[in-house]
């Protein structure tokens, strides 16, 4: 569902010619300084000892990889870390994810996955949601359909990790 919710953006270009003059504004929208900063100095990158849930994703288009590890304390995310390699969008998105996740309950984390996925697919309501915080910097990706999968790679891994966790008894919290 990437073709909907284009409202609020610039007028859609005619099909087959998705480009007017080179749009520095759109480029600036996708490559915000915040994203480049997360790419250059990724947060929470590395292995996570005593993780409760892990999942990995590969983008078959480019071979980019993200492995995500989450540790819970009770029903609340205590820590999240990632490893992998890839483009600025996939790496910055993973870095931001690990920061946004800490302190959330499982249902809240699942809701955030849905909210973020809507955001990068151009959902106007998600774009206006201040509770998404710095994640909104990735909203510009919605105008680059070829790059949406880069942004969702880590989030797709998170969704899978949460599912594997739910399949197990709730007592799996590492220290709670």
């Amino acid at each position, binding site marked *: 569902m990437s073709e909907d919710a284009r409202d609020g953006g610039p007028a859609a270009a005619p099909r087959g*010619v998705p*480009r007017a*003059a*080179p*749009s*520095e504004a*759109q*480029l600036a929208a*996708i*490559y915000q*300084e915040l994203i*480049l*900063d997360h790419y*250059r100095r990724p947060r929470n990158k590395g292995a996570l000892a005593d993780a409760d849930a892990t999942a990995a994703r590969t983008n078959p*288009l*480019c*071979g*980019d*990889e993200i492995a995500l590890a989450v540790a819970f304390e009770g029903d609340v995310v205590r820590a999240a870390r990632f490893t992998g*390699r*890839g*483009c*600025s*969008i996939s790496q910055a998105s993973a870095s931001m994810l690990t920061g946004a996740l800490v302190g959330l309950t499982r249902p809240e984390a699942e809701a955030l996955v849905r909210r973020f996925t809507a955001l990068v697919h151009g959902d106007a309501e998600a774009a206006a949601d201040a509770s998404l915080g710095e994640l909104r910097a990735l909203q510009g990706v919605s105008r*680059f359909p*070829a*790059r949406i999968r*880069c942004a969702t790679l880590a989030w797709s891994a998170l969704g899978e990790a949460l599912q594997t966790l739910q399949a197990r008894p709730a007592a799996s919290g590492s220290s709670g």
Partner: protein
Amino acid sequence: MSTFVSPDLLPALPADAPRTAGSAAAADAPGALVARAEFPLLAADPTLRYLDSAATAQKPRAVLDALADYYARENANPHRGAYRLSVAATEAYAAARARVARFLGVGDADTLLFVRGTTEAMNLVAGSWGRAHVGAGDEVVVTAMDHHASFVTWQQLAIARGATFRICELTADGRIDLDHLAALVGPRTRVVAFPHVSNALGTVNPVREIAALVRERSAAIVVVDGAQGAPHLAVEFDRLAAAGVDFYACSGHKVGGPMGIGALVGRRALLEAMPPWQYGGDMISLVEDQRTTWNVLPHKFEAGTPNVADAVGLAAACDLLGALGLDRVLAHERALVGQAMARLAALDGVRVHGPSAERRSGVVSFSVEGVHPHDLATILDERGVCIRAGHHCAQPLMRRLGVSATARASFWVYSDPADVDALVDGVQAAQRLFDGG
């Protein structure tokens, strides 16, 4: 030559071209080999810099006209009806085969099979010859630069037949290591497959030398993936066959023809002995209740209603390229590739993969330190420059290069120095953006 070649498509040699008013730099630069005006998609957007011709070529007007003309004037199911329109379609299809055969240097046009493309051609050879002749203990050899269309097809055949799958490594500058190949090929080798030209690096491989090497050491069939060869080099299949090549496959859409059509050329004796690989109409001779006999070549391998229109479109593209002269095409591409390689390599942090320009067709594959190929492609796209970013369906090669992906720019007859300028400018812009923090 053919009536499908428009005289407009045969430009004067650059030296003869009249110089009109303009900047000295523009006047000195060689332009496109065939004017952008002859390619409707490029003509519609003068700012577009299309540098992904190795993925698919833009289509000349002559090809689009040939497609429309066929459907408007000759369309019917060939080989079927007794009525004149069906006969016209049959003749158009046969003529297309003859024209494509002439372009590829095939004297016996019935040994040229129309297929969907190189991928289908590889699957045909593996599925028919391979299943009949490769067994446990045999060996199948490909190279580390094979496209997945060849690599995966032969890998899976080897797995299915219990054969050993061997990979010939490359030299440091991205050429097939002939010493390693000589060591790999022996009496147990049943198949040796390699590309005429690497899609990821642009390396032009010495086909006849490799075929001779295989012939000296084994009775293996030699299968050449010509997807990146036919658009840039005179194939001259009969000469390749004399040196030991058994099959040559190529895709129509990379030579300016339509998508969905390609050619597989094979030695007649092999094709006649091979079992069919798809069954249906047209490929049969006689169907009895409990047995069927097969039609003659090429029909034995063309089950079902053939893709006449795209064959006619491909023939138009072949006529055009043949009249233009592939020596001129290659010289044009190498001039642009040489410029692009020199200017990219001069930038800090840019690594150009593969051999020197005189060993290439029109491909430049490169990495920019600190800028992922996908980011580079997005930034270039915003400047109207289309490049490929990814593994180029050559993941085994990417692993050997130590990267997960590269950026690739590729040139063809409509490319010009402005394309190189736009590429280099865009790479520098990406470096500024990513170094800026």
